[in-house]
């Protein structure tokens, strides 16, 4: 498995709060291959964003990575000194954030924000960086990019802001892009455009990507491989077609059902009853057991071991359809 761009092994990131330890990411394994788009899906609060922040080592206290390793091109990022990690951030691994309105600095122009990472990582002059920025924005479908580049974020529409964010993320030719809910804050019509943009980038630049989303439509549209995350743990992984056509974990099944009932009017709405456990509680069995329609006695006693099937992996004692 040496061809993997990113290999996360047994990663645990905990938040040490006053109320107790929140195990936001709990023993997660994840592999991203060359030119592969990997989706991490799950409902809000399941630890998806913490996972991304852990890979970038952007966590602030009280969050802390407690165990595991993150190999990027076979270098363990968790063992790098901060200064080396800084040279990887924005250059080799970059990030697209959920809400472009608040992730862009309101007091700096688009140009100032795009140029600063290029002059830093690529060691090119400001003029060169500026013309590169214009090129990138043009490729991302912004008309009159040389005007837009002089604008401040508040003068841009939501879609334009997200394009600028994407432009910033790819400006230094990264090998891996982490996209944390890249379309969530956008209008549906813009969402489609941005998704197409991401697909195009992947094709043209040979990028590897991790797309974090709660939107199954997004995951289905652009991912090769899917990891389903629940309460800080990966519960199921597999190729996108397999997971969507024949979900194995009851949680994935429920997630798909509830998503489909939104799109297909005739379909009776199905919800997953209850809420995810508070990650502070110590739970013995499967974290999903209290909400599961398919549970067996064993689910309440012991956390499921992974079972493998045609390159798929699921953590469940009683998978759907067996």
């Amino acid at each position, binding site marked *: 498995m040496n061809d993997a761009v990113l290999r996360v092994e047994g990663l645990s990131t905990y938040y040490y709060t006053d109320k107790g330890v929140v195990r936001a990411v709990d023993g997660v394994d994840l592999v991203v291959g060359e030119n592969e788009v990997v989706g991490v899906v799950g409902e809000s609060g399941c630890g998806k964003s913490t996972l991304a922040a852990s890979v970038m080592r*952007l966590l602030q206290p009280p969050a802390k990575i407690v165990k595991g390793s993150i190999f990027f091109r076979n270098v363990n990022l968790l063992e790098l000194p901060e200064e080396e990690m800084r040279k990887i951030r924005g250059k080799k691994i970059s990030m697209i954030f959920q809400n472009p309105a608040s992730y862009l600095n*309101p*007091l700096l122009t688009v140009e100032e924000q795009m140029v600063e*990472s290029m002059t830093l990582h690529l060691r090119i002059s400001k003029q060169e960086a500026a013309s590169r920025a214009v090129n990138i924005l043009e490729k991302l479908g912004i008309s009159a990019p040389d005007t837009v580049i002089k604008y401040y974020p*508040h003068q841009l529409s939501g879609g334009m802001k997200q394009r600028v964010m994407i432009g910033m993320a790819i400006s230094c030719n990264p090998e891996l892009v982490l996209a944390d809910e890249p379309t969530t804050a956008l209008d549906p019509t813009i969402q489609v455009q941005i998704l197409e943009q991401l697909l195009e980038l992947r094709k043209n630049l040979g990028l590897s990507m991790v797309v974090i989303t709660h939107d199954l439509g997004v995951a289905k549209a652009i991912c090769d491989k899917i990891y389903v995350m629940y309460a800080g743990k990966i519960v199921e992984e597999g190729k996108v077609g397999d997971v969507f056509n024949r979900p194995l974990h009851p949680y994935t099944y429920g997630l798909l059902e509830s998503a489909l009932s939104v799109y297909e009017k005739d379909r009776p709405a199905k919800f997953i009853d209850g809420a995810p456990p508070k990650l502070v509680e110590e739970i013995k069995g499967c974290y999903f057991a209290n909400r599961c329609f398919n549970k067996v006695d064993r689910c309440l006693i012991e956390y499921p071991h992974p079972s493998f099937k045609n390159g798929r992996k699921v953590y469940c004692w009683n998978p759907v359809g067996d």
Partner: protein
Amino acid sequence: MSAEYDFKSFLLIKVVRSFVMVFIILTIGFLLIHLAPGDPIEFILGGAGFYTPEFIASVRERFGLDKPIHEKFVIYVLNFLRGELGYSYVFGLPVVEVIAARVPPTLLLMGTQLVLVIVVGSLLGILAASRPHSKLDYLVSSLSVAGISMPIFWLGLLLIFLFSVSLGLFPAQGMTSLRVTGWWEGFLDLLSHLFLPTLTLFLINLGLVTRTVRTSMLEALRSEFVVAARAKGLPERRVLFRHAFRNSLTPLITLIGLQLGWLLSGAVIVETVFAWPGMGRLLFTSIGSRDYPVVMGIFLLVSTAVVVSNLITELLYAYVDPRIRRAK
């Protein structure tokens, strides 16, 4: 572009508003001073009881004190528009001259401390905010509270006791020594006189600036664009100054704006404690001697300074934040 035009009209409105404000202040100040008890004639003549009523009346007439208040007001406003503020009863000199002689020492003292406070306070605030709840943060915070809660005259006396009386390092009074010759010697002498009053004001104001910067920096550091800046791999110093500090400037500008207004008058206590020949002390003595024209002149100057510094503050907001520049 139209934004350019908008900015000009924005500026014009602000300037016109400032002039109106100064006129209103002038009116209120004039009324207040004339309604206050005490008769300047007592101080002009040094005990009116020794003089005949005819003589007192003639002095009153000479100084224009016999005219009704509305007439005095009209004369004052007309003179004000010509840049004249009347004559000091005590010094017998034009008020403009009396005040002008006292402005440079005050500006020197307040300007020096303001620059020091802004630079040192900002750095300490940024440092404390970048390591919240560290020992350094607690140290800076406790010192700030100590500075804010210490009475200024008491701190001044303590510093005089320490540096002048016990250690004999710095002079406690005045701005210059007699019998100092030469440019360089004069400069050193001025610096040594400047040290204690500046230090007093510095220690008092430092806490306020530090706390303000720390709070707004903590807020800015929590913003998502700071996460984005870190995700770009920018060095921490650049994240702190270019991204976080710029976004936390507004409260600091407000604070400095308020302080600028005080520049000319806020030194009353310190100037009195250290016998600094500035405007603060002039105001203090003029009030004591009912020298109305001087009091009124200082009052006007300080109010104008406050109005102008408010104007500058608003322009600075617009300079720092493009969103304000665009809105109206």
